């Protein structure tokens, strides 16, 4: 389809939009010009919006035969120089895992949105879940370090999708927007800034001409090798096999160890720059509620209720889920008596909080299907305050 830009890429202004649409608009604002996907509730609106918008903004939309194909397609597009994205939900996210692994080991930037629904399996297609948090870290075989943002509102669907694109290019790897059905389908005011005001970090390009450097060699101690594109003459070799700095496959434990450690380290060592969180009434809190995404809205409501009842509760809302805000947890752990982790799953982030604190960690969990009820969180805050001492 001949794609001609006839519509503005950035819809500057105030909107009343749902999270899925805001995500699509965030992508466009970030310069996303390639979307390959496969419909799945509750993320379909993202694809539909992209199908409507991309052909009118000079980009390309293609609907693939499945999620495996979608994932690979955006990787190919990324090597062709596109800012590429796909959007899905649990079952599709699972099907993308193998080629997410390819993206991690080949350091191919891309953005993958998972609007979480109730799982496992087909589960509750139309209702919310937050049970893909650990999967986002561990869903593919082997070791790697993902970056995952967890928006809690349509506005954040917009904002964090932009950040996701920038992080993907900066660290040359997939970045996740780990939303959930409530946020994806919730409609609220979204403010889209002027195009100039939108930060777009570029993808680092090799500073050497073709043939004069190693494609997979990180420079300046950054751990992230600059990325040449297909067609530029660099005679790239990309492989999902363990490879050396030339990009060539090598059957060697040493090379493998070096490779996977660099891939991990480029994120771990930059964690401080990547990790984002929000604190609310934490300063004097005895109980720290940890939450994210739609559950964080229940949690904040609960903290307000608790405060009104005289309970010293505060909220640590995770804006990035991965890399995990371990340092923040350790730090907070020194100040509070106990943690309450509120999440729409059977206790995933809770396992991470446990790693970084020896204080009591209470979980407020629900298998999924509806937002966490604030009352339950308030009760847990009480229990945590009383139990902890």
């Amino acid at each position, binding site marked *: 389809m001949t794609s001609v830009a006839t519509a503005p890429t950035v819809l500057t202004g105030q909107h009343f939009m749902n999270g899925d649409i805001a995500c699509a608009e965030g992508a466009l604002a970030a310069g996303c010009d390639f979307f390959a996907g496969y419909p799945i509730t509750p993320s379909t609106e993202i694809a539909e919006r992209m199908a409507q918008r991309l052909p009118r903004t000079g980009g390309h939309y293609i609907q693939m035969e499945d999620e495996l194909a979608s994932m690979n397609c955006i990787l190919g597009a*990324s090597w062709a120089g596109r800012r*590429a994205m796909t959007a899905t939900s649990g079952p599709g996210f699972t099907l993308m895992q193998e080629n997410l692994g*390819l993206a991690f080991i080949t350091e191919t930037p891309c953005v993958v949105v998972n609007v979480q629904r109730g799982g496992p399996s087909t589960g509750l297609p139309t209702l919310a879940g937050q049970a893909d948090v650990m999967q986002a870290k561990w869903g593919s075989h082997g070791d790697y370090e993902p970056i995952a943002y967890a928006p809690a509102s349509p506005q954040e669907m917009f904002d964090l999708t932009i950040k996701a694109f920038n992080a993907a290019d900066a660290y040359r790897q997939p970045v996740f927007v780990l939303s959930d059905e409530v946020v994806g389908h919730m409609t609220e005011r979204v403010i889209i800034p002027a195009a100039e005001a939108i930060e777009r970090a570029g993808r680092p390009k090799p500073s050497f001409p073709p043939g004069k450097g190693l494609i997979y060699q990180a420079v300046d101690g950054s751990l992230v090798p600059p990325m040449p594109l297909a067609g530029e003459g660099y005679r790239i070799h990309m492989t999902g096999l363990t490879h050396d700095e030339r990009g060539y496959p090598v059957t060697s434990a040493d090379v493998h160890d070096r490779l996977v450690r660099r891939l991990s380290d480029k994120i771990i060592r930059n964690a401080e720059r990547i990790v984002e969180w929000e604190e609310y009434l934490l300063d004097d809190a005895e109980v720290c509620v940890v939450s994210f995404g739609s559950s964080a809205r229940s949690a904040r409501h609960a903290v307000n209720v608790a405060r009104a009842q005289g309970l010293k509760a505060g909220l640590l809302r995770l804006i990035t889920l991965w890399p995990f805000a371990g340092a923040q947890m350790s730090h907070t752990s020194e100040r509070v008596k106990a943690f309450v982790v509120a999440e729409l799953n059977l206790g995933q982030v809770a396992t991470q909080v446990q790693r970084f604190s020896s204080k009591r960690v209470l979980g407020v969990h629900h298998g999924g299907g509806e937002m966490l009820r604030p009352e339950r969180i308030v009760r847990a805050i009480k229990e945590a305050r009383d139990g902890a001492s």
Partner: protein
Amino acid sequence: MARAEQIVEVHPVDQYLRSERLPHIWCPGCGLGPITNCYVQAMVQSAIPADKHVIVSGIGCTGRVPGYVNIDSFHTTHGRAIPFATGLKLGNPELEVTVISGDGDLFAIGGNHILHAARRNIDLNIICVNNFNYGMTGGQLGPTTPRGAITSTTPYGNPEDALNLVHLMASLGAVFVARWSALHVRQLEEAIQRVFQKRGLTFVEVLAPCPIGFGRPNDLGEGLDEMQLYKLECVVDDTADLKDCGIDLRSHKPLILGNFIDIERTPYGEWEEDG
């Protein structure tokens, strides 16, 4: 002047090879070497500059071809070369994207992608090296293994019928469909030249010896023996009825080769919008 051979260190196409990686991993007698050779010759001679040629594969012995060719080359995951190549091509239509992969990679695990790429008529050149088995993993049954054949996972004979690749691709609407063998290097080179020029999804099947995985267990001998068999039993017939062109090397029936299909169909991305 007596002209015996001269011993040298460099081959004329070495600059288009990642020659520092030679010798490649393929077994003696494997058909993959000649096929790579053909691709490189065709690529070098094509009107398209080498910088715009891209080669993409999945996983398998055939999947290793891109690793030896000194152009932009992508060795993806098992079965996924085509969607990756689709992204490359749609992302940058200037690229001349060739997919080369094994019969198992393209038609077992990757079958769905080739089906839909053909339906969409994505502008890709697909070269499928058919060695009738999964070579890389040591000679198991694949979708092209003929019924009754012995592989490491069909020790009592394969109970399945094989796919007839050229027939399938023709019925899916590929705009160019050919079959050659690793022995038919001239014709193969020419077919590859032609697919570089065609727009839309083209498909070239190449029969190739895999003495380890298929030849030996099926009493076809070494690579050389299978090449001799091609020499004896291949028949070129561009107009053959593809339905009848299934292949069983053990049957000693004629192996039909040719450039079977060459049609025009607007490639994906070039339709005018209707709406």
